[in-house]
């Protein structure tokens, strides 16, 4: 496993309406690592993930993504290295299969390859029986699995997940765990999870970063 940095964060701060919500002097996440941000609601986990997903411009500081300054160069090519699964994810108003294939179409993957990868992830996430169902007909657990499948099928080097176990039923949690471990072990994906579910992340990794009031209290 390569130990080069996937993320290198230096003097990172962010604020909303003048209130500092994030203040991280230094944090490194190695490539191929599973890292968890743990802390209570409002501790800055989601803000940090949004910055790491290049969706939010921090007020100050720098974030290097594979050595590239991601604050200055938030271009599409850099963004292709990262996928974020939102805390309250949305599915597009179409079928499960089309939802999962969305990112592959955006990346210009050939049609045959899209079919193969979508079929494989549908089987892995046990969504075969709802593959052609409309997204609005799914249960909460199924919808969450579709969102995960849609993110993981892209095989991006980095996968960010914001509270991924929130809407998962008990039966879906081992599926999520296995999928994340597989992505990490077979293709060396860097996985960053923001959660308050310490039980879940402690079964995945020992790298747990504790946040409180926007600051790291234990890395």
């Amino acid at each position, binding site marked *: 496993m390569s130990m080069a940095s996937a993320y290198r964060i230096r003097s990172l701060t962010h604020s909303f309406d003048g209130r500092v919500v994030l203040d991280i002097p230094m944090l490194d996440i190695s490539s191929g690592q599973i890292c968890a941000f743990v802390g209570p609601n409002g501790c800055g986990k989601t803000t940090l993930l949004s910055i790491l*997903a290049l*969706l939010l411009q921090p007020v100050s500081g720098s974030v290097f993504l594979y050595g590239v300054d991601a604050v200055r160069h938030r271009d*599409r090519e850099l*963004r*292709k290295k*990262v*996928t*974020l699964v*939102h805390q*309250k*994810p*949305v599915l*597009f*108003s*179409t079928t499960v299969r089309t939802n999962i294939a*969305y*990112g592959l179409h*955006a*990346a210009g993957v050939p049609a045959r390859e899209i079919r193969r990868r979508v079929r494989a992830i549908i089987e892995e996430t046990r969504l075969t029986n709802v593959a052609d169902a409309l997204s609005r007909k799914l249960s909460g657990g199924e919808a969450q699995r579709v969102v995960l499948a*849609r*993110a993981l099928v*892209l095989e991006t080097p980095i996968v960010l997940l914001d509270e991924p176990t929130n809407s998962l039923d008990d039966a879906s949690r081992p599926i999520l765990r296995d999928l994340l471990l597989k992505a990490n072990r077979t293709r060396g994906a860097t996985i960053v999870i923001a959660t308050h579910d310490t039980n879940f992340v402690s079964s995945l990794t020992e790298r747990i970063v504790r946040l409180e009031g926007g600051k790291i209290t234990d890395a």
Partner: protein
Amino acid sequence: MNDLGLAFKEAIRLIFTADPEITTIVWASLRFSLCSTVIASLIGIPAGVALASSQFRFKKLVEDILNTTLAIPTVVIGLFAYTLLFSQGPLGRFQLLFSPAAIIIGQTVLIVPLIASLACSAVSLVNPVVRETALTLGAGSFRTTTTIAAEAHAALLVACITGFGRVIGEVGISLILGGNILGYTRTITTAISLQTSRGEFALGLALGIVLICAAFIVNIMARRIGRRHS
């Protein structure tokens, strides 16, 4: 039975016997309204979606101007278009005045701001996570915008239907730019206006009933589309 009762009875007879004058007028109205709605939708929806999806300095001002144009009376738009299309006007050489094309142009001008404004509102109401999701899945700005528009497709369709409802019932533009020529540019509303001024209520009433039915169908369609996709 009084005159109104007789006129109403005659109006019903004209509708159910598919009176040729009525069918000609209704068909012309539908053609002009459908054409202008399609053209205005092709302009207004991309414009509204683009406005909602973009951030620029004078965006609020553009939205205010767009909303202001919704309140312009149809006769003013008709008059403005007339000055462009009459024989000595800038577009006079095309000889479009008192033709179906003139009505379609005027009606298109009338509802482009309406459709654009409704499209802008519809797209603005889409969950912002849709945009972020599209971006994090690697979509470029065009695909992201079309994805957001697709999420608002029901509201965009309702915007088009609302535009159709607006033009089928307008009279100022059709009268000024069309000239109310029977079998050519006479629409439901201009015919009602003419018949009323002549004191011949039966045909006017029959056309009024058709117009109300059309508005009713349009409203039901809009409600059903909105409910199905909500």
